């Protein structure tokens, strides 16, 4: 299955979490790499993912944040 890449840097609230939600609801992908640039967006996405038992994720912190999500 394909991986979906999303660059959501620089977008106002709530677009990063909204786009992430739309992506993970799309069954044609089973892994995702989300690029964001504020901790606020990261917290919002983590809060969304905490409600989803069917997904696991890791976060790479650097200049930006990279969230790698995959279906379990």
């Amino acid at each position, binding site marked *: 299955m394909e991986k979906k890449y999303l660059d*959501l840097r620089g977008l106002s609230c709530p677009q990063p979490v*909204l786009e992430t*939600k739309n992506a993970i609801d799309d069954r044609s992908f089973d892994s995702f790499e989300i690029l964001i640039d504020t901790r606020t967006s990261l917290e919002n996405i983590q809060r*969304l993912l905490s409600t989803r038992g069917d997904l696991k994720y890791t976060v790479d912190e650097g200049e930006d944040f990279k969230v790698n999500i995959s279906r379990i």
Partner: protein
Amino acid sequence: MNLFRKHWKIISCGVFIGILATLFQKFGNPANMGICVACFERDIAGALGFHRIPIVQYLRPEIPAFVLGSFFASLVFKEFKPRGGSLPLVRFFLGFFAMLGALVFLGCPWRAFLRLAGGDGNAIAAIVGLIVGVYIGVKFLKSGYTLGRNYSAYKFTGFLMPLMMLGIFLLLIVKPAIPNGAPFFSLKGPGSQHAPIILSFVGAFIIGIFAQRTRFCTMGAIRDIILLKDFHLASGVIGLLIFAFLSNLLLGQFNPGFAGQPVAHTNQLWNFLGMVLSGLAYALAGGCPGRQLFLSGEGDIDAGVFVIGMITGAGFAHNFAIAASPAGIARFSALAVIIGLLFCIATGFSMRKRLA
């Protein structure tokens, strides 16, 4: 209990704001206006001479303290990040019209909840209006509305809003004697009522720190429920409402009713529609007036443009018979709200892009 553990930080922030706002009233701020971002920016606009209504002119230290508190917290926690360039002119007008709507109702969302907590029933129409406005904004967001990305900016740009706010605070402290009388300070009316400067500044500075850390946002609270069924931010607003209410009861500041409420009017249609306009503008701009201040403190210069749009809107609203008063709405309140709604709807429909 589990819910509380998960959300205790944002709840504490709301509780702190609620209690502090009622204490500010006790110590001198206008009744049911312990903290109001819209009203206080309007008072600042008046003190600077952008409007000449003699009863609403004061350099409210709470506004600079919010920005500086957030600035401080973002530096300490390494979240200070100068950024901008996401359609600033559109954000200016969103701020401008948000303020017109706020001054037709007479309050920002914070004050709407504080008014309700003080027993002012007129706030109900406004809160319903806020929910409707945010709901329309969510519809736009779902259909792809976006003002596009911001980009990293030169470090110095992130200092501009904190420096401007420091300047406003220094004007209050120094009170320079300018021949034409500026800065202007009300001798009577709400503008003359204020808590001691040190209390207002220190209290609001701590709110700025809390709010930067927790991302407290009244618009986001409603938006996240509608959009994501996420009650995180809402738990903070509920904390504010409940504890402001309890604190008002203890301080003898709870006076239920509709008529004769402080700095309020009873025209429910325009309490409602004014806040529909504001709520929609906040949703399209991504934050309530308080949140825009905190964002501007952590380097979001687009949020700074929104704030300056609000201050400009305040001057305009009072100069052009748009701002309401306890006597009711003004001659052009309705027209201004309609134009503002048209602007927001045009913005929502015309600015869409597939991002991913």
